[in-house]
């Protein structure tokens, strides 16, 4: 025999489900799923620029920034306290009249991005390398931020 549904209870359940769904979105649920990660290049619209990837190993923190077409001499990388500053300018195409363009999708102009670092770094030893339009910054961790191995002694 079929049980009668309680309409109020059903509504309550639906509300719960909806809340669950929104909570998932708030927690960047989709972002964490490999199939929902997306690949894109910064275009004309304003976004944080340059886009970065951060990786770490035992001794260093690595920041990879996607910034094609820069003059390596004009990239400013500096570390102050716990923040990394990347500044520079992507030069526009020179001496071309706007009406000569068939397509203009690449952006240009000045940019500045400040990234707060998750660990203390040794500001003196930071290295930056620009290769094929990608900027790789290697930040050695400060001694205090490195993991310490503690040996367990048996008594």
């Amino acid at each position, binding site marked *: 025999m079929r049980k009668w549904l309680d309409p109020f209870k059903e509504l309550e359940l639906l509300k719960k489900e909806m809340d669950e769904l929104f909570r998932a979105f708030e927690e960047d649920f989709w972002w964490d799923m490999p199939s929902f*990660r*997306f*690949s*894109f*290049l910064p*275009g*004309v619209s304003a976004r*944080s620029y340059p*886009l*970065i*990837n*951060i*990786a*770490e*190993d035992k001794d260093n923190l*690595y920041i*990879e920034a*996607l*910034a*094609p*077409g*820069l*003059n*390596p001499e004009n990239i400013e990388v500096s570390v102050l306290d716990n923040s990394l500053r990347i500044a520079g300018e992507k030069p526009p*195409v020179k001496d*071309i009249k706007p009406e*000569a*363009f*068939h*397509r*203009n*999708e*690449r*952006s240009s102009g000045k940019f500045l991005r400040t990234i707060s670092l998750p660990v203390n770094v040794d500001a003196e030893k930071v290295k930056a*390398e*620009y*290769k*094929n*339009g*990608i900027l*790789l910054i290697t930040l050695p961790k400060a001694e205090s931020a490195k993991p310490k191995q503690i040996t367990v002694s048996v008594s």
Partner: protein
Amino acid sequence: MKETTIPVKTDTRRVPDTRSATRTIRPPVDIFETNDGLTVIVDLPGTHKEDIQIQIENDVLTIKATPKSLLNIEPFYREFELCEYFRQFQLSDKTDQDKIRAEMKNGVLIIQLPKKEGAKPKQIPVTVS
């Protein structure tokens, strides 16, 4: 210049992994015209000169490039992912296909597509009598 996409022929017996084969980035381009021809500028960050393929077949210009990340460990924070770049354009019949040149610098590809001699504009001086 018209953008075009030619369907890729697939071998039905060996279906490629659709996730890797069809996931491509459409890189942003600038195209402008001068009296001598067209210039195509493409942003291809992370691509080494050797990893770019530029092909012309049946008046279609194909740009294909495979970028490489400078990191060899998986990042814990990710804003972008590099995968193959792919874009195609239909060339006009006024392009001199034998004189196409391409140059790569700092992740930016510049392709020069010169016009055929007959297609270049002729300057006619105006004399005042």
